[in-house]
């Protein structure tokens, strides 16, 4: 290295702090890896971290967001298709991508760091504990990873959002086990749950998983979902993207809502991609609901109003965009 050296630690504490606060966030984070004392100093700065997003997949990623700046740490694991990534695995190296969108300008820097002698779990712990972020989010791609509940609890911070993604292919035993570990570790505290291609089964229904405390539930292309399963949830907002036409089930759901189920529900959006020649029969959806139509037939979106036994009003918007998209939006207005 040709750079001139500088005896940084011989500076008084206040000057060291002043110098570090002059550096950019990326250098501050880099400095936190230099030693334990350096790490403590950076912690004392309370960096204004908005979100830390951890993506647990074959090559895990940790993204730290600070206002208009995003720093992504891509943990490059040994390429071995048979071996799954686990939290005790040691990355080969770390690809650091720095993105800055400040002042409507975009800049990008990519560099490669060593693994700093840290495992995947230690990288997560380090980056999550530099500063108390406003929000911690974790995505788990269950096919690629091997997890257990105690390690997850030990390593991860209190998460606000958890996303569990199953592969397109049929779920195997390991996928289900990993997902169960994630739920067991986090579902008590988590507020926002996102499930992708989730293979609901008799012993793995929404009730089994224990969705009781989540406020937001998003389901993308779930397998074997029954709209009835949504009835017992306490979620305030539910989003469902499905491949099946759910009009009959939704009709039952709304009937039960009118009778008083799902009292906490504020919003339900159900979306599906219609097949060719599909024409939605909104009459099936509205059958027996005694809904008041607030738009003329054929107008997009069609709007209906229903009222439940508690006197709460809700609006149902029915939208159909040819073969591209159809959705039903249910919004409770007090």
């Amino acid at each position: 290295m040709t750079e001139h050296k500088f005896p940084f630690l011989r500076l008084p504490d206040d000057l060291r702090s002043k110098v570090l606060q002059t550096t950019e966030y990326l250098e501050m984070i880099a400095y936190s890896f230099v030693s334990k004392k350096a790490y403590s100093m950076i912690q004392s700065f309370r960096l204004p971290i908005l979100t830390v997003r951890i993506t647990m997949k074959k090559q895990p990623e940790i993204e730290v967001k600070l206002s208009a700046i995003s720093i992504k740490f891509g943990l490059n694991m040994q390429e071995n298709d048979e071996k799954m990534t686990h939290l005790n695995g040691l990355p080969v190296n770390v690809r650091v991508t720095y993105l800055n969108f400040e002042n409507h300008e975009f800049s990008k820097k990519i560099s490669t760091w060593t693994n700093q002698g840290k495992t995947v779990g230690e990288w997560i712990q380090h980056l999550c504990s530099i500063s108390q972020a406003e929000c911690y989010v974790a995505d788990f791609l269950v096919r690629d990873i091997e997890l257990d509940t105690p390690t997850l609890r030990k390593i991860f911070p209190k998460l606000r959002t958890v996303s569990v993604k199953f592969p397109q292919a049929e779920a195997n035993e390991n996928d289900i086990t990993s997902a169960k570990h994630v739920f067991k570790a986090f579902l008590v505290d988590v507020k926002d749950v996102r499930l992708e291609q989730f293979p609901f089964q008799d012993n793995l229904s929404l009730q089994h998983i224990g969705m009781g405390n989540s406020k937001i539930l998003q389901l993308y292309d779930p397998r074997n979902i029954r709209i009835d399963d949504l009835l017992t949830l306490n979620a305030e907002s539910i989003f469902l993207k499905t491949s099946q036409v759910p009009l009959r089930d939704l009709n039952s759901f709304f009937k039960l809502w009118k009778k008083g189920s799902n009292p906490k529900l504020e919003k339900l959006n159900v979306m599906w991609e219609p097949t060719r020649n599909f024409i939605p029969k909104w009459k099936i959806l509205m059958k027996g609901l005694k809904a008041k139509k607030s738009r003329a037939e054929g107008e997009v979106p069609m709007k209906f109003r229903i009222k439940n036994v508690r006197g709460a009003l809700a609006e149902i918007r029915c939208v159909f965009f040819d073969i591209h998209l159809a959705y039903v939006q249910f919004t409770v207005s007090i």
Partner: protein
Amino acid sequence: MSSTEQGTSSAAPAEPTTAPESAAAPEVPESFYYVHGKDKVVHKVSAGALQHSALIHGMISNLGYTEEQAKANPFPFENIDGDILQMVVDWCNQHKGKPTPPEDTNLPKQKEKLFDLVLAVNYLEIKELLTYCCKQVAMMVKGKSPEEIREIWMIPTDAEDEAAEKEAKKRAGKEAAGETAAAAGDAK
């Protein structure tokens, strides 16, 4: 190092020969003060330039020296190397009565002197120059990895740190034991 625009450097307080040059001649003659560092070389600096230093400014406000008294009593900064003090004096002269720009191109370029300069500027409480100096230290590690930062800023690893602490404790223990033995010997 050449002497500053307004000042002269010599081993003894120098006779002010020329008044400071500025765009408009001041109505009241500017007062000058004298400072010297470790090398005892005296620098003549105008009060306007010294305003940058909160420390010296405070000293001047309290002293109320006449020109003769100031000449006879240069401010001694024995903890600052002569060449570093020269750099500071140059910077103060260059920025006399001017608002300091956000990026300063007049900063001393010798990186090997940066550490001493930072300490001197901190001691003299020259806020703007300190900010620039800190920026320059920060720039040394821009875009660097943790290992590169450790090397450039000469930071020991945790293992080295622990070993050094152990060694220091050991040494302190030995010294304490030696002192106790000596005290016991004296008592006998």
